[in-house]
């Protein structure tokens, strides 16, 4: 059922990085208008709307859309992958024809946005926050330390993730951080929360992005090369890092990833380009293993040996990722934008002949996941 929807519009905000003169709502609108222009459409053509981080009601009112289909699923940074999956189902079911998915986040400047905290009444608020951990820097330390002990990953190997992604970012004029770095640079950067140094933590920036989806049979009528959605998956595990079934693997990844690949009927060899949401440096390691590109414990060596670097056999996070490109807080939208650019053939660090791009997102601290397989061809 999932062979019939394509991305016909995709764009990020005009600016990325530090945008103190625009509210979060304005970032949504800027991204949405850019994506609509990319597709040759106006807001009048949109009859389905999805967003996270802000209420879809706010956004619909602000943009002047009265949609026939709405999705406000909010499970963290991968929410936009889930929106894509839900939009595919909605379009195929006939609930709407043209879906706008927007993301805007004033993550750095904090203009028109709520704070980042779990409610005291939430599970995490009751059972984890009283002991101190709150937010990614203090929560992500637990799984990565377990991974390091169980599989012998070194600090140098963890640092290499950031080094490789900076190599990609150095080819991208829109990346927030473009200056090449070494493993020593990473290990000598400020210790934020053991074992994470500053350069192993995501950026904190402002920006947004938007996608326009419609039926594949209409896709060739749009000005841009269509990017077909051939597989999708989603899941959630737990809002509490201490309750992960296995601290070295995300159950949400292992549900969402295989579901998307099965639906797309692809094997690992079919994937030309990979995006794994890299909030922190260990995320791509978990993604590579949970998706099955590497055996357990082997992803650090796989990255160290430059397989995901420019010129490697599995180009990954080619925009520079959340570590070097941008990270407003919910990075998932930017990962999908890079998949779309790579299939269109217009990425700043373009990989030759990308036909299939797999995009894996995380939500919260291994709390959720969404996975999308993009393709240059509709599934047969």
């Amino acid at each position, binding site marked *: 059922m999932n062979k019939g929807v394509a991305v016909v519009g995709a764009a990020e905000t005009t600016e990325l990085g530090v945008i103190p003169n625009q509210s979060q709502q304005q970032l949504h609108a800027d991204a949405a208008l850019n994506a609509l222009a990319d597709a040759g459409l106006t807001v009048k053509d949109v009859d389905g709307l999805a967003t996270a981080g802000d209420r879809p009601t706010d956004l619909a009112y602000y943009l002047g859309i009265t949609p026939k289909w709405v999705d406000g699923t909010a499970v963290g940074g991968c929410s936009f992958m889930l929106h894509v999956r839900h939009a595919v189902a909605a379009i195929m079911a006939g609930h709407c024809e043209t879906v706008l998915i927007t993301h805007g986040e004033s993550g750095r400047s904090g203009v028109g946005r709520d704070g980042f905290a779990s409610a005291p009444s939430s599970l995490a608020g009751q*059972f*984890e926050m*009283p*002991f*101190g*951990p709150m937010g990614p820097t203090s929560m992500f330390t637990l799984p990565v*330390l*377990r991974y390091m*002990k169980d599989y012998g990953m070194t600090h140098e190997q963890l640092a290499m993730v950031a080094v490789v992604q900076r190599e990609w970012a150095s080819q991208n004029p829109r990346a927030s951080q473009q200056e090449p770095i070494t493993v020593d640079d990473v290990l000598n950067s400020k210790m934020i929360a*053991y*074992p994470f140094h500053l350069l192993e933590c995501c950026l904190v920036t402002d920006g947004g992005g938007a996608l326009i989806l419609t039926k594949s049979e209409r896709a060739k009528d749009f000005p841009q090369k269509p990017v077909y959605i051939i597989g999708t998956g989603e899941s959630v595990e737990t809002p*509490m*890092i*201490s309750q992960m079934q296995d601290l070295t693997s995300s159950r949400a990844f292992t549900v969402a990833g295989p579901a998307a690949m099965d639906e797309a009927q692809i094997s690992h060899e079919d994937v030309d380009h990979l995006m794994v949401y890299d909030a922190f440096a260990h995320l791509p390691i978990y993604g590579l293993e949970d998706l099955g590109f590497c055996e357990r414990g082997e992803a650090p060596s796989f990255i160290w040996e430059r397989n995901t670097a420019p010129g490697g056999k599995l180009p990954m996070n080619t925009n520079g990722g959340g570590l070097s490109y941008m990270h407003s807080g919910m990075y998932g939208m930017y990962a999908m934008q890079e998949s779309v650019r790579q299939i269109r053939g217009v990425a700043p660090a373009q990989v030759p002949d990308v036909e299939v791009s797999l995009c894996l997102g995380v939500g919260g601290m291994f709390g959720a996941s969404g996975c999308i397989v993009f393709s240059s061809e509709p599934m047969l």
Partner: protein
Amino acid sequence: MMTNIVDCPQTPEALVLDMPLIVKFEDVSEEITLPLFKPEDDESE
């Protein structure tokens, strides 16, 4: 479960994964007591 390890230097060298621990109940108010943990070989108290 999430908890804190107390009566131990808060350093990576001292806070070793899988170290044996023993519970230490900490009264944080008249009504609330939190279970914290200390190294099993700690001789204090």
